[in-house]
């Protein structure tokens, strides 16, 4: 009989929330196990978001989402230098394009103040024009949110995993949890990697949240993945907008955002399309053209810019507005579900919140000095390896990724698990040529590394 993999805590799902929980519980001395169905971390909802650090100015007042976002925001700023995480201090502008939207701006400011974001204020048309000279003439006025910033969606979760591993956590990739039962003391989980035993299970399964929840109970929420498509313009387009340009929100969605990215591009998106499929995030030509048209309406000079990349992400939306975080102490189960686009900001705050819930009922946690595990910089607005004497030669010519960066992402205790993971850790193959020049070489390096690993595992 195969030996059962035992751990105190199993966290299901290595999206940004799972990674932050993993870090938090490892820092508490609990040696958690993170299991991920995909080939690498961030294979699901967390790979395709708009990469913003939110203040919570427009969040639902008094919600758990707001609390977690604001706690997450603070912790991100506290730890980011230790982990070498980027921050592009851009600010955001909620722009009114007609009279009706203009009348809504004071409400937005009032809500922001109520949410504790006191520096939010309305600015007039001239001020807006000075700040954003490329915006279309039709912009009437805006709400300025100084604290909204741009971050990189992939470095932070990777850094959380590295830190969790340094503190004794473990991670299994390509490991899907298929079932389980609770015997009053611990969980026996069935997975594609065999049986596992866990003292406590945390469900952070993102778009599969309600399916995983059904292992424990009838899920109180249903996930209806909400697809968001994005268009990423080439680097010169980043000069067209300094702040994040937000629309006046409607009931259903925050609408289409224009934002620079940490990688030096300009992004337009997302759409909001409900679907049943939990894995398939398709892009759609008509919708991409619509995004480009919308973006060009707001930023006319975009008509002269070229598209680098397109992508679609699935946000785990439920029938509820707020996060679905639930602690079932008798069942040794914690539910962390329905974490939508704000998850990147809120992840660290969610981890704090869940850790506090855990500590109310269980002991055995310790406080240790954190071991810091800085990650390589991917942000275009900070020094990158190719700019340094020791950087070596460049492998990906569009994103200026060095061969060393690719080799390092494939080495070490937690190498990239698939090509998507390699792209997210290095940016290689993500530029304007999408692999025409470097795709063969980068994928060869990766295949060599993975077949060497497989050979090692088999021997």
């Amino acid at each position, binding site marked *: 009989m195969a030996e059962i993999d035992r751990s105190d805590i199993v966290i299901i799902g290595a999206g940004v929330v799972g990674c932050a929980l993993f870090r938090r519980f490892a820092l508490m001395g609990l040696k958690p196990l993170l299991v991920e169905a995909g080939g690498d971390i961030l294979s699901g909802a967390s790979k395709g978001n708009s990469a913003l650090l939110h203040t919570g100015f427009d969040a639902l007042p008094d919600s758990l989402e707001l609390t977690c976002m604001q706690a997450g925001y603070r912790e991100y700023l506290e730890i980011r230098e230790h982990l070498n995480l980027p921050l592009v201090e851009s600010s955001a502008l909620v722009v009114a394009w007609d009279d009706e939207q203009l009348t809504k701006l004071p409400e937005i400011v009032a809500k922001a103040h109520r949410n504790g974001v006191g520096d939010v204020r309305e600015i007039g048309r001239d001020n807006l024009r000075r700040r954003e000279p490329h915006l279309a003439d039709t912009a009437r006025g805006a709400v300025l949110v100084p604290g909204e910033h741009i971050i990189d969606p992939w470095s932070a979760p990777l850094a959380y995993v590295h830190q969790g591993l340094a503190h004794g956590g473990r991670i299994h990739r390509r490991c899907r949890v298929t079932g389980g039962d609770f015997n009053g003391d611990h969980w026996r989980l069935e997975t594609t990697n065999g049986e596992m035993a866990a003292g406590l299970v945390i469900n952070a399964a993102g778009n599969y949240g309600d399916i995983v929840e059904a292992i424990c109970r009838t899920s109180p929420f249903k996930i209806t993945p909400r697809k968001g498509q994005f268009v*990423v313009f*080439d*680097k*010169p387009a980043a000069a067209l907008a300094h702040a994040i340009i937000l629309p006046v929100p409607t009931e259903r969605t925050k609408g289409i955002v224009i934002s620079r990215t940490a990688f030096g591009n300009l992004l337009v998106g997302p759409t909001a399309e409900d679907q049943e499929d939990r*894995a*398939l*995030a*398709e*892009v*759609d*030509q*008509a919708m*991409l*053209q619509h995004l480009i048209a919308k973006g060009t309406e707001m930023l006319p000079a975009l*008509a*002269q*810019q*070229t*598209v*680098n*990349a*397109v*992508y*679609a992400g699935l946000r785990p939306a439920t029938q509820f507005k707020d996060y679905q975080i639930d602690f079932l102490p008798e069942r040794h189960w914690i539910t962390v579900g329905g974490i939508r686009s704000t998850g990147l900001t809120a992840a660290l705050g969610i981890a704090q919140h869940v850790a506090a819930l855990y500590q109310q009922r269980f002991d055995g946690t310790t406080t240790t000095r954190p071991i810091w595990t800085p990650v390589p910089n991917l942000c275009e607005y900070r020094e990158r390896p*190719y*700019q*340094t*004497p*020791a*950087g*070596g*030669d*460049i492998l990906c*010519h*569009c994103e*200026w990724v060095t061969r060393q960066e690719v080799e390092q992402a494939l080495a070490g205790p937690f190498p990239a698990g698939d*090509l998507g993971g390699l792209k997210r850790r290095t940016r290689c193959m993500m530029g*304007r*040529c*999408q*692999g*025409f*020049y470097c*795709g*063969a*070489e980068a*994928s*060869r390096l990766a*295949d060599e590394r993975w077949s060497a690993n497989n050979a090692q595992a088999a021997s």
Partner: protein
Amino acid sequence: MSGHRSISAEVAIIGAGPAGLACAQALKKAGLRDIVILEREAEAGGIPRHCGHTGYGLAEFSRLMTGPGYARRLVDGVAGLDLRTKTTVLRLEPNGVLQITDRDGPATLSARAVLLALGARETPRSARLLTGARPWGVMNTGMLQQMIYLQNRKPFERPVVIGTELVSFSTLLTLRHAGIKPVALIEPCHRITARRPADLITRFCFRVPVLLNTKLHRILGTERVEGIEIDRGNGIERIDCDGVILTGQFRPETALVVPSHLALDGVVNETGTGGPVIDQFMRCSDPSYFAAGNLLRGIETAGQCFREGRAAASNILETLRGNLPPAPAYIPVTHAEPVAYVYPQRIDPLGTTDQPLLFKFRAMRPARGRLQVSIDGKVVWSRCIQALPERRLAWHLPARLLTGAQNVHVEITGEKPSPAR
């Protein structure tokens, strides 16, 4: 700045493909030695390096060669010159100053003349805004050929090939070399883009079905390509395949030019070459920069790039000798729809004394009519043409016609509807 390296040269050539190497070789033959050739890849030779099939070199070297053989021949031609591979140019600055980086880190290179021979690349899946999932197995010919010819790897077993340009047939040869049998060749237009009988060769020699009037509707598969949906005008059909090769729709590789001070002829493809604006001496808007090869307009044959590289060399030599001063003003070359582009995009009036001027043209859609060139409103040249989007046309004008001219205009007049076939 301590530790920052500075290098200087008479001539810097960016890109060691056919255009760059032909230019370097011609400069070397003329006795110039202070030349630096910068190539970002590990091997010099450019695209032919990974076109393992034959079809190169007939005009330049009087024998039929394979791409790699041709690339080696080009590289041999610059033996003794300073050819630096794995060297990336990061930024073009005014007056021939280049910011570069190599394995020793960043450096500044100053040259009296710079040739931009940056080449072209195919339009990837993203910029084509294709519908569907984004699985592994969708690639351009560039990546496919590197995998097959340089790495001996087989990315798939039964892909579809999108496009029917010349490069699409190069793709078929590449696939055959690797023992890969494509499922179909797909073309949205009513006829293939490359010249006939490429389609007949495809059908009868490669035994690959050519589907005309067929649009790629959607890509299927989550991890790997599982199939595509096509639209043939009467509903959506599914084709099972494990790869999608997006061929052609070449664009100039202008990543360095776009953020620089140099003028571009259209950034988004529809009108303009998408490459740098040049005059009849292949000089860019900063006269210390010259451009040649596929950077000028997307794809032409290696042979044409080679000839352009050589032509650029003689213009660079004249500049170094002081015989080509910067022009105080230029004669603009304008055009009207359906002309997609004409280059050179402007004429130096001082340089119009002896040599005939060579113009090159392409249409944006199939068109039949009279291609006509006017100088200051007066028609000076015309010819009946049947243009196709990927077909180029070139003509010469006697230089004396340009003396005192204000404007050159190119248009297609008396357009007749294009035949269905």
